[in-house]
C-alpha cells in the first residue's frame, strides 16, 4: 500500500501546525466561532450534540496494522476507548476535547493519516471497493487510481470551495461493492479490447434528493481519467448553484442542464485540460501501481481449513457467511463483523482494534480494510490460518457470523450523537439485530439500512429495507422504504407508506419478514428477489395489515 513521501509528511506537519494555532486563537478569543467553524470543519472537527467529533479519513478504506494500532491508542488517550467506523470508510471519535485535537492530529500524522477534507464543500475521502486488490471478480486493483485522486484532490486550490461536498467512489470489479451509482462521481473499471479504463457515472447521491447516477461516459481510458474528472469538477464548480444548499450538488446540475448538455460542457473543458496535463499524472500512477503490488502470497497446504470446516460447526458458520472468494485460490477475504447482536453498528473498542491490527500483521500481510457497510476486512488470509484467526476473533467478541444477514445493518449515529439527526438510528439497529437473531440464517441475504435524518448517511434509500427516522410533531417516527439496492443493479427504494412510532418499528419489520418467508418460492429466493418478482403490494399489505392479509405469515 501507499506510504507517505517526504512531501506528504511535510504537508501534514505544516497543516497541523496551522490548525494548532487556529485552535489556540479560538481559545484565546481571537477567533469567533463563526470564524473558527469553517477552519475546524476543514480539519474534520465537528461539534455534535454532546461533544466534539473528529472524523478521520481512511483513504479508500485501506489501513495497515500500525495505523489501526494508532487509532486504538488515540481512542484511549484522548477519547473514550472506542471508535466508530462510518459508511464513508472514515473513523469518528465521538468525545475529543478541543484542546486535545491538535495532538490527536499529530498522532495521526505519525502514521500517515489525517482528517483533512472529511467535511466541507470539497472532494471528500475517496472511497473504494473494500475487497480491492483481493477479490476474485476484479479486473484490477482500483486503489492506485484512488490514491492518485486523493493526492490530486487534497488541498487542490481550485476545488476547496465547491458549491457543495463532492464524493467519489471507485471499483475495479463488475460487482459493485462501493455503491458507485450513489456518488457524485462513480468510477467502474472496464476493459475495451486490451485497453483499461473507466465507466464514469455522474450525479448520483442519496440525501434529500436521491438519484441514481447516470453514465456520462461509458469508457474513459485510464490515461485520460484525471483530466476528465478535473473537467467534471471544473464544469460543476463553474455552473453549480451556490444560492441554495439543497440544490447545490452536482446531481441537481445534471437534472437542470440535462445529461447531454453536461457531457458537452465536460467534453469541451476536457479538450482544453487534457493538453495541459503533461503526463505527470501517468508517471505518478505508474509509481503508485508498484505501491499497491499484491503481497507475496504463500504456498502452503490448506488441509487445516478443510478439517476445521468439516468438524467445527461454529467455524463453518463463520466461513459460510464471513469469507469471500480471493483471487488466489488458497486465500480468503475475511470480513470481521462489527455488528455483534445488540452492539452499535461500526463501533470497535481499542482492544478490538489492537487485536485486528495484530491479526492483520500475523495472518493478513499487514492489511486491513474498512467497508462502507461498517465492518473490517482482512483482505489476504491464507486458508490454513483461518481456524487460528477465527479462534482469536472469538476471544474478542469479533467472530459474529452475520455478514450480509439481517443483523448486518448499516446505521448512522443518529440522534444519539449527530446534531443534524431528527431521530435515533442506533437503538433501532440494536433491537432489529436482536429480534431476528434466531431466524437470520433462514431469512438469508438482507440489507437493512437506517438513517436518522434525510441526509441519508445510513444509505436507507439503497437498503432492501430502508428505515428513515424523522421528527413528526415532536415524536420519533420511522418511514420504511422497500426494494432499494446499492450494487451494480442499483435502485432506490420506494416509500411504503405512513411511518411507524419508535416502539412499532420492530413489529413492522417483523410483518415484512413474515410476509417474505411466506411468499418466497424457496429459501434460495432472497427478500430483494422476491420483492422484484412480486412488486411492493404484498409487502405493503403485510406492513399495514391491509388487503385481506392481516397476518401475512
Amino acid at each position, binding site marked *: 500500500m501507499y506510504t507517505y513521501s517526504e512531501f506528504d509528511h511535510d504537508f501534514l506537519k505544516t497543516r497541523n501546525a496551522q490548525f494548532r494555532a487556529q485552535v489556540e486563537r479560538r481559545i484565546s478569543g481571537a477567533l469567533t*466561532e463563526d470564524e473558527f467553524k469553517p477552519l475546524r470543519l476543514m480539519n474534520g472537527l465537528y461539534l455534535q450534540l*454532546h461533544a466534539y467529533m473528529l472524523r478521520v479519513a481512511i483513504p479508500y478504506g485501506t489501513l495497515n496494522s500500525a495505523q489501526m494500532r494508532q487509532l486504538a491508542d488515540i481512542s484511549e488517550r484522548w477519547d473514550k476507548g472506542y471508535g466508530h467506523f462510518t459508511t464513508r470508510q472514515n473513523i469518528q471519535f*465521538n*468525545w475529543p*476535547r478541543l484542546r486535545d485535537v491538535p495532538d490527536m492530529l499529530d498522532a495521526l500524522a505519525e502514521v500517515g493519516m489525517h482528517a483533512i477534507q472529511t467535511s466541507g464543500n470539497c472532494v471528500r475521502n475517496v472511497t473504494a471497493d473494500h475487497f480491492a486488490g483481493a477479490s476474485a471478480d476484479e479486473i484490477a486493483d482500483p486503489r492506485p487510481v484512488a490514491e492518485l485522486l486523493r493526492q490530486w484532490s487534497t488541498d487542490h486550490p481550485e476545488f476547496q470551495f465547491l458549491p457543495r461536498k463532492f464524493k467519489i467512489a471507485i471499483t475495479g470489479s463488475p460487482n459493485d461493492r462501493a455503491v458507485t451509482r450513489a456518488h457524485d462521481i462513480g468510477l467502474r473499471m472496464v476493459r475495451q479490447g486490451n485497453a483499461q479504463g473507466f465507466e464514469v457515472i455522474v450525479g448520483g447521491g442519496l440525501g434529500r434528493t436521491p438519484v441514481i447516477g447516470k453514465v456520462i461516459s461509458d469508457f474513459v481510458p485510464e490515461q485520460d481519467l484525471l483530466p476528465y474528472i478535473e473537467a467534471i469538477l471544473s464544469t460543476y464548480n463553474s455552473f453549480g448553484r451556490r444560492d441554495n444548499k439543497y440544490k447545490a450538488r452536482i446531481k441537481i446540475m445534471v437534472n437542470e442542464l440535462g445529461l447531454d448538455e453536461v457531457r458537452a460542457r465536460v467534453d469541451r473543458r476536457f479538450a482544453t485540460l487534457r493538453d495541459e496535463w503533461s503526463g505527470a499524472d501517468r508517471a505518478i500512477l505508474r509509481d503508485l501501481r508498484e505501491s499497491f503490488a499484491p503481497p507475496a502470497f504463500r504456498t502452503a497446504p490448506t488441509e487445516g481449513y478443510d478439517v476445521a470446516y468439516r468438524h467445527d460447526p461454529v467455524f463453518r458458520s463463520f466461513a459460510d457467511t464471513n469469507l469471500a472468494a480471493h483471487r488466489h485460490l488458497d486465500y480468503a477475504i475475511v470480513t470481521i463483523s462489527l455488528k455483534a447482536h445488540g452492539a452499535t453498528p461500526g463501533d470497535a473498542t481499542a482492544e478490538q482494534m489492537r487485536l485486528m491490527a495484530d491479526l492483520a500483521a500475523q495472518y493478513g500481510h499487514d492489511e486491513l480494510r474498512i467497508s462502507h457497510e461498517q465492518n473490517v476486512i482482512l483482505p489476504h488470509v491464507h486458508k490454513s490460518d483461518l481456524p487460528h484467526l477465527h479462534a482469536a476473533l472469538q476471544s474478542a467478541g469479533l467472530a459474529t457470523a452475520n455478514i450480509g444477514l439481517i443483523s448486518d445493518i448499516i446505521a448512522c449515529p443518529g*440522534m444519539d450523537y449527530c446534531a443534524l439527526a431528527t431521530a435515533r438510528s442506533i437503538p433501532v439497529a440494536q433491537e432489529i439485530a436482536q429480534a431476528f437473531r434466531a431466524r437470520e440464517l433462514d431469512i438469508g441475504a438482507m440489507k437493512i439500512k437506517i438513517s436518522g435524518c434525510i441526509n441519508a448517511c445510513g444509505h436507507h434509500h439503497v437498503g432492501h429495507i430502508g428505515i428513515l427516522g424523522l421528527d413528526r410533531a*415532536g415524536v420519533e417516527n420511522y418511514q420504511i422504504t422497500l426494494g432499494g439496492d446499492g450494487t451494480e443493479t442499483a435502485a432506490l427504494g420506494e416509500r411504503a407508506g405512513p411511518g411507524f412510532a419508535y416502539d412499532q418499528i420492530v413489529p413492522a419489520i417483523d410483518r415484512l419478514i413474515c410476509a417474505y418467508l411466506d411468499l418466497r418460492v424457496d429459501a434460495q429466493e432472497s427478500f430483494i428477489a422476491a420483492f422484484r418478482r412480486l412488486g411492493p403490494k404484498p409487502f405493503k399489505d403485510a406492513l399495514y395489515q391491509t388487503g385481506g392479509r392481516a397476518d401475512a405469515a
Partner: protein
Amino acid sequence: MSRDFAPSVLTANDLFEGDVVYFTATGDWSRQHTDALLFTNQQEAAEALAAAQAQPERFVGPYLALAHSGPNGPEPVHFREAFRARGPSNYRHGKQPMGMC
C-alpha cells in the same frame, strides 16, 4: 409572563469539552438540565441569551430551548433536548444516572 413566550431554559455547548451546559438561577452554568433556570419572562431570557452570546470564549451556539417544570427541576419538552440532557442511548457516556440508559 409574556403572552407568546413559552417557558425555556438557556443552553449551549461548552467551548472546551463540547458538553451541553445550562444557565442556572445563580448565574452559573451547570451540566445538568434539572439545575437550569426556567425562564418564564421573555425579556429576561433574551438578556441572558445575549450575555451568553457575548462570551464566545466559553460557549458555542447558545439558544433557548423549551422546557417545563418537573419534580426535580426543569425538564425538556422535545426529545432532542432530552437526548442532549441525558447523553447517547447506546453507552453510558453522557449524563445518564445509574439505571437509566
